[in-house]
């Protein structure tokens, strides 16, 4: 059996090559891909996310951890697909109409993937039709990002557009606040990527 603790440690310190060789060793030994994913990889990303929230690591450390995880994931993906392994849920994410900033949006996407969710990345400059496409692909939660004070009000239009549906909208970005989320009737707000994962966890649990 692959050493799950070692895989976890290697992901958290961003050691891509070490992750690759440890995961490959596991595959060669006939280990269960789901166990590698759920016992080593996802816990690593959850823990690095918690460290991020506690200001113990920052964006660069999160990014290299995610890159290391992706390297391992690529190796076990075929086995996951053939075993019928399902993600925890589907989330679509996009920066709102008029806004081309994507660093924050990408971070949230990375952390959601790392936590075991399937993420449909709609990119930047998303209008309601684009978010609709994400929902058509099976997402039940929409994550909206905005960096600009002038694009932030579009979040209200997104909330309005989906208000008579079961779709949940969560929002975030530099100018966005919990106050604003309450004002426009969004289902949640987070001020960092790890918080967004926690928010999605809660929303999926509620809908289950």
């Amino acid at each position: 059996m692959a050493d799950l603790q070692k895989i976890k440690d290697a992901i958290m310190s961003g050691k891509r090559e070490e992750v690759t060789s440890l995961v490959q060793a596991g595959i060669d030994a006939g280990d269960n891909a789901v166990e590698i994913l759920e016992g080593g990889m996802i816990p690593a990303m959850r823990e690095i996310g918690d460290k991020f929230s506690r200001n113990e690591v920052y964006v660069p450390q999160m990014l290299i951890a995610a890159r290391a995880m992706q390297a391992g994931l690529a190796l076990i993906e075929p086995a996951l697909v053939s075993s019928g392994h399902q993600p925890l849920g589907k989330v679509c994410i996009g920066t709102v109409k008029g806004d081309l900033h994507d660093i924050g949006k990408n971070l949230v996407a990375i952390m959601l993937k790392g936590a075991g969710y399937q993420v449909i990345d709609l990119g930047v400059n998303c209008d309601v039709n684009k978010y609709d496409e994400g929902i058509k692909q099976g997402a039940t939660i929409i994550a909206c990002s905005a960096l600009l004070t002038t694009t932030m009000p579009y979040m209200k239009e997104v909330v309005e557009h989906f208000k008579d549906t079961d779709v949940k909208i969560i929002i975030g970005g530099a100018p966005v606040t919990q106050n604003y989320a309450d004002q426009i009737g969004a289902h949640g707000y987070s001020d960092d990527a790890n918080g967004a994962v926690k928010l999605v966890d809660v929303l999926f649990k509620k809908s289950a």
Partner: protein
Amino acid sequence: MNSKQLVLDAISGKKTERTPWVPFCGVHAASLLGVSAEEYLKSADLMIAGLNKAIALYKPDGIPVIFDLQLEAEAFGCGLHWNMDNPPSVVSHPLAGEKTRIDDLTRLSETAGRIPQVIKVIQTLRKQHPDIALYGLITGPFTLALHLLGTDIFMQMFDDTDAVHRLLDFCAETGKVMSRIMLENGCDVVAVVDPMTSQIGPDQFEEFCTDPMRKLFDYICEKGGKSSLFVCGHAQKNIEVMCDVHCDNISIDENIPLDYVRDICREKGVSFGGNMQLTVVMLLGDEATNKINALECLDIGGDTGFILSPGCDIPFAVPPENIIAAGAVAQSRDEQEIARQLASAARGPEVEKFDLVDYVEADKLKIDVITLDSLGCAPCQYMVAAAEQVAREFGPKVVVREHKVKTAEGIRMMVSLGVSNVPTLCMDKEIVFVSSIPGNKALADAMRERLRQKLKK
């Protein structure tokens, strides 16, 4: 003391007779002219006109000549996406991929990109406003590095540290060129704006940013300029290491508690500025919330080594009256007192309004003057005196009453009439004169017209 000296003294950490007010007015000035951010940032004439309008309205002690962190990036060949109501965004990065290396980039000079236009703005503003501190804003080394290389820089900080050091040295050298241009053409303060440092922690800040920033800030000092380091976002963890880069001042936004920054800066001998809330207060709030927020900042910042300013570039569509309200609080003790009353009314249990349904009488004109206290506030005194003097012409048909917001009754009346400025004169519940004292004729005309309407009925 003139405004410029006030700013320079505060930046140098000195006690000032009042806290200087520096509204970071970038593309917001375009909205004052009714033009787009793109038109504004591409035209020296529009920038000069917009800044003059902002100076006339907001009475700043200091003002940035430009707030566009894409200026250098554009000159280096980054692709820009222009916006109607925001500064442009960088959409392509020349150093991303293998094609271009640092050595291939043409060093910036006075003739690159929109720099000639900025020089014209500085020179003109300098001549027009010798007594206001002009801020030359330049892109900080880490943010410029990110513009040039893209987000790959975060990976390279682990994969190729030497390359990142070289890039940041290059960006700091660029900062020196921009600082020289700003100072030689008339700016007093160089503000190095480096928001992307909020994405890294103190260890990486020290590893990659401290040294290039020190070289840049030492250079600004050698050239005789004052300096400030602007950050925005969640940069609280970096305030201590930011204080060690030899800058004179640190300016922050609402994501960092001002008292936290004050305590660290004072310990490190660095002055500080900030941090009015950009969206909830300035963009979405009203005059009263802006006054209260300005007062909160002043109460924390004090009058030694502190500059009151918005947390960052003022959003395009902020209502001008909100900025005027904030500036007035910085510059007038009476306004501070009014803000204090507003704050206590806002904090306390909701003020119960008077029932004014039957307030208006058929044969009398009721004049209500809302004041701080006509004994202690000169404009209030003149407004009450003018109202009483003119009212005498009309005998018992006009009744004048003063309501001091220092009293519970005054606050209730202020809220009941929907007044948010002091002094304000209302006639039969209607707000007629705000802040400025009307001449006797204007006042008499207004009273006469209202009486005429009444008697007609």
